[in-house]
């Protein structure tokens, strides 16, 4: 649909030469694209407007740094502006109160309150060593209480015994007492989903608040939300005074402009994000990452962190040395495949890379999936140690044996060998082509990759690293700001130091 903002800005500025400062017309042209990108990301129009106005002031007349192109300069300004709007830095939950700290969850139907309550319980118990009690005040949705009870069991948290005769306010009172008497550190109150225009339900929420005097009132909102995010956030904030936002389903592919809309509307930070269906898939909100995501700049920070987690540093160093010396055998190939799996598979990895949204879809369409990666692993594991080092040994009869051993066909083996060769060739070319170009060539489906657009589905460590270099080269000016890769280039970037706040 819409190209990545970065590409668009590049084309806006491509007609311009290098200049010392950004002129008004440069900025206006660029901001038109920014506006579109933000709307496309579901940032609410009023927020977009005020944002664009403030950015315009900063951008006009800004000096373009020597080594930087105007489009990069604009992206930097926009990125910084987004970060500022998103609250600058991560904001933790307020838990340092006389126990029990009370957390009230509120939001529309289906926004993910109950699931988030369960996740939060686990999070607080594991990461903060708190003793948590959950209480469901949701009497509307069938089985909402059963759902919370099941989640409490999973999280090994306490749960308020149910009752059919009590109102939400009475339940709240009983929950407060129980949490207090039983020595819980945190009490999480899960409320029924409600529409912000439902007066009776909003009044109920106010009543609950009055009884519970919560330390945190978290508005749980779906990151898939469109323009309505502003209205909802505003209504809840006016009714009960929100203290933080939890954005759910951020593991989807929505750009999540709702985060910006709501943060701006309520003046409250996004505190937590839900990133998966499992109970541990709750993370602290990272404004920098979110800014990148809204701009479709790729979640490069997440990529580096994930890569750093997945890959043993030693292993990365070993790989780096081998690549530098031009040696790259099936063992290396195998270890790349495994790293890839650790990094959440192909889909997850590509989703984090900037501008590759389209490619990701192409790949999905071509049926390159993680099962395929598994097959390739099986093929390599069916090779002898010698064959893995000396790939040249693989004659027809050996290939036949490997195919039989791995439960694949000789064609599959051939394909893998070809991919290995392509990759080995690319190793040598490394540094001669720009990373993204090389990556795109690899993924592009043309280029003699035998119709398989992914060449077998292997964004290698080296490809990733090339991308990192690319990002760094064209990277955001201003030092620490956007560039998540620190000093390192080259492969060690993968195993290198994760960006820490």
């Amino acid at each position: 649909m819409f190209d990545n903002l970065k590409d668009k800005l590049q084309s806006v500025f491509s007609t311009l030469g290098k200049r010392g400062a950004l002129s008004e017309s440069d900025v206006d042209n660029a901001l038109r694209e920014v506006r579109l990108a933000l709307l496309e990301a579901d940032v609410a129009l009023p927020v977009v407007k005020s944002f664009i106005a403030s950015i315009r002031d900063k951008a006009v007349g800004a000096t373009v740094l020597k080594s930087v192109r105007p489009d990069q300069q604009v992206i930097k300004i926009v990125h910084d502006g987004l970060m500022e709007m998103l609250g600058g830095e991560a904001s933790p939950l307020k838990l340092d109160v006389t126990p029990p700290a009370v957390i009230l969850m509120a939001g529309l139907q289906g926004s993910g309150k109950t699931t988030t309550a369960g996740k939060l319980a686990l999070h607080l118990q594991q990461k903060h060593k708190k003793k948590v009690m959950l209480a469901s005040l949701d009497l509307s949705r069938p089985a909402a209480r059963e759902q919370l009870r099941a989640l409490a069991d999973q999280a090994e948290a306490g749960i308020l015994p149910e009752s059919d005769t009590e109102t939400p306010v009475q339940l709240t009172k009983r929950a407060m007492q129980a949490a207090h008497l039983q020595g819980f550190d945190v009490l999480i109150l899960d409320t029924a989903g409600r529409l912000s225009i439902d007066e009776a339900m909003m009044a109920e929420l106010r009543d609950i608040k009055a009884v519970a005097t919560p330390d945190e009132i978290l508005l749980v909102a779906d990151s898939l939300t469109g323009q309505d995010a502003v209205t909802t956030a505003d209504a809840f904030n006016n009714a009960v005074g929100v203290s933080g936002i939890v954005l759910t389903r951020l593991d989807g592919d929505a750009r999540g402009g709702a985060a910006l809309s709501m943060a701006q509307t309520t003046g409250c930070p996004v505190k937590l994000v839900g990133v998966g269906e499992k109970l541990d898939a709750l993370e602290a909100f990272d404004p920098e990452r979110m800014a990148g995501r809204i701009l479709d700049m790729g979640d490069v920070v997440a990529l580096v962190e994930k890569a750093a987690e997945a890959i043993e540093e030693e292993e990365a160093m070993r790989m780096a040395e081998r690549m530098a010396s031009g040696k790259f055998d099936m063992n290396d190939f195998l270890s790349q495949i495994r790293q890839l799996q650790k990094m959440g598979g192909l889909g997850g990895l590509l989703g984090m890379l900037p501008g590759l949204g389209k490619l990701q879809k192409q790949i999905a369409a071509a049926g390159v999936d993680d099962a395929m990666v598994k097959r390739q692993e099986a093929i390599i594991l069916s090779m002898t140690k010698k064959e893995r080092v000396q790939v040249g040994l693989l004659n027809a009869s050996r290939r036949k044996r490997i195919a039989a051993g791995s439960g694949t066909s000789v064609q599959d083996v051939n394909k893998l060998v070809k991919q290995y060769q392509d990759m080995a060739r690319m190793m040598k070319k490394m540094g001669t082509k720009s990373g993204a170009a090389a990556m795109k060539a690899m993924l592009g489906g043309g280029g003699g990759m035998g119709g398989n657009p992914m060449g077998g589905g292997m964004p290698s460590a080296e490809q990733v690293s090339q991308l990192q270099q690319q990002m760094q080269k064209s990277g955001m000016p201003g030092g620490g700001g956007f560039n998540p890769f620190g000093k390192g280039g080259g492969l060690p970037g993968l195993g290198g130091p994760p960006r820490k706040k």
Partner: protein
Amino acid sequence: MSWLKKLTAGLKKSSDKVSSSLSGISRLFGKGRIDAASIEEIEEALILADLGVSVASEIAEGLRARNWQGEVTPDVLREALAEQLTDILLPVEKPLTFKQAEGENDLHVILLVGVNGSGKTTTAGKLAARFQAQGRHVVMAAADTFRAAAIEQLSGWGARTDTKVISGERGGDAAALAFRAIDEARADKADVLIIDTAGRLQNRAELMEELAKIIRVIKKQIPEAPQDSLIVLDGTVGQNAIAQMKAFQQTADLTGMVITKLDGTAKGGIVVALAREFGLPVHMVGVGESAEDLQDFTARDFAHALVGLNPE
């Protein structure tokens, strides 16, 4: 009273937005003229209603190109806008219909798919109530074996609507359950089987594969099933709905849409964008929590409600 009132009430807030923006254009334009600034305001109002940038500007272009006759009052403008929206929505206005059942192979299977929290389970329950009221014999299958208490939630609807619910173990195989549900529904001589599936984000390949498997298994039993493969979309959803539609279209071969939660402040304008992009029938809209709040979709009324006109 019917659903018109409900939808109008439901869409009131959103139409308020569009219409207040339209009322902002309080000045009258000269004979047959309308200026660029006001068109831009309309475009913005449409964007605010989640129509998306491209459809909004397309509609704005249409207004601009129109041969305006006489004085252009805000009401005239609004009516013109509603007309344009109706034109886009009319092709997708198709109520859910059944083939007449004859023989056991004609068990009508309705599969509900969508992302998490869009309202699949609730819609399943409401659909059951609707069909029961039509005198059909309905069975539901709780194929959401993932979410905690999803089975209980559907069973709750089963009890409410007096509908049998076929369920299995939590964490069990959804496809196997679907298979068994068809057997049981047939044995019960049911007319309709509604299969509720787990919510899944469309970019999760493994979950989409699980859905594909459910459908393969259903087809093994009844080749032409699911006769209705419905995506349930949250009315508050933004531009990501397009990505959702594409992915589910590919995996589940969608036959229609149900838009939920239109009783809130959500505009549901995304329906217009989706109609334009996919042309898939919009069967029903959810405008409230009770069973009768699942209503047939009507293009003209939706369009009028969206721009703040009383659909008579």
